[in-house]
């Protein structure tokens, strides 16, 4: 299983790197309305190309990406919502296909990290400043520009 998977990864990579194709794609799909075009563009940029390393569907030159873009186009033309499209893709390829991790119990730590760290930072800063201000109380000397007291 391991060896096969490793070979698969190499084959998939080789298909991209050594294939007779450019490193990116120009997607000239035109949707009938500007709103649909914007949604199409947003979705194809938000979903990962499954055969490439770190490329969005919009930019990937491989055939699979072109096929998947076609699926998205058809779904949007059929009146599906953005959530429908995401659910369809995730239902087949897993969460890995999303560049934006969904917010659920397994990813909450990631999304909440910056805010939580900011709060923690504020607490630390408050403690340090309070301590240093107290230390300043017994020190009446002014300082010069260079900070020498």
């Amino acid at each position: 299983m391991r060896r096969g998977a490793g070979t698969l990864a190499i084959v998939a990579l080789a298909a991209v790197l050594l294939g007779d194709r450019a490193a990116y794609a120009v997607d000239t799909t035109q949707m009938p309305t500007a709103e649909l075009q914007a949604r199409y563009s947003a979705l194809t940029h938000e979903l990962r190309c499954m055969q490439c390393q770190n490329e969005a569907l919009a930019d990937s030159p491989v055939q699979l990406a072109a096929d998947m873009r076609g699926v998205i186009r058809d779904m949007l033309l059929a009146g599906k919502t953005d959530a429908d499209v995401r659910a369809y893709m995730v239902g087949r390829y897993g969460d890995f296909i999303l560049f934006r991790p969904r917010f659920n119990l397994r990813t909450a730590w990631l999304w909440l990290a910056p805010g939580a760290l900011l709060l923690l930072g504020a607490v630390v800063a408050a403690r340090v400043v309070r301590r240093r201000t107290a230390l300043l109380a017994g020190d009446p000397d002014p300082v010069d520009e260079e900070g020498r007291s």
Partner: protein
Amino acid sequence: MSRFLVPLAAFALLVVVLAIGIRHAPEKGVIASPLIGKPAPQFSLPDLGNSARRVSSGDFKGKWYLLNVWGTWCYECRAEHAMLLEVQRAAVLPLVGIDWKDDDSEARTWLTQLGNPYAVVAVDHSGRTAIDWGVYAAPESFLVDPRGIVVYKVTGALTREVWTRDILPRLTAGRVTGS
């Protein structure tokens, strides 16, 4: 004193995570299939052997089958082919082929030259069916039970190791429990 140990503790935690990551690294190319345990996607595609007929997922209801996605352009598929012929000879379950993004006449030539392990081959020109099954690189194989539930997915070539270790046990266990 204790807060100065925090960086070291955090680092130790990181090392553990990285070590586990290295152990999993060879499997990085494999994405777990969300289809496992779910009903197999429905399809209705032209039959490679007979252009008047269509192959559909309903044809196999009530039987175990192995769906194999391949193409003549796929290097790994050629390597896998010998194993597929073995599976056919073992006559344990039928092989259903999906010829993915391929040329029909080249596919027929391939099967004539190398042997045809498939009970039937469906042709997917548009690629939509493959996407429906969550295929992202050939070859891939799906083990489906008589209820139409996807039991297992093989990413990459089907090797003897995978067959005996992953497919057969599930097949026999399923048959024993009468599913």
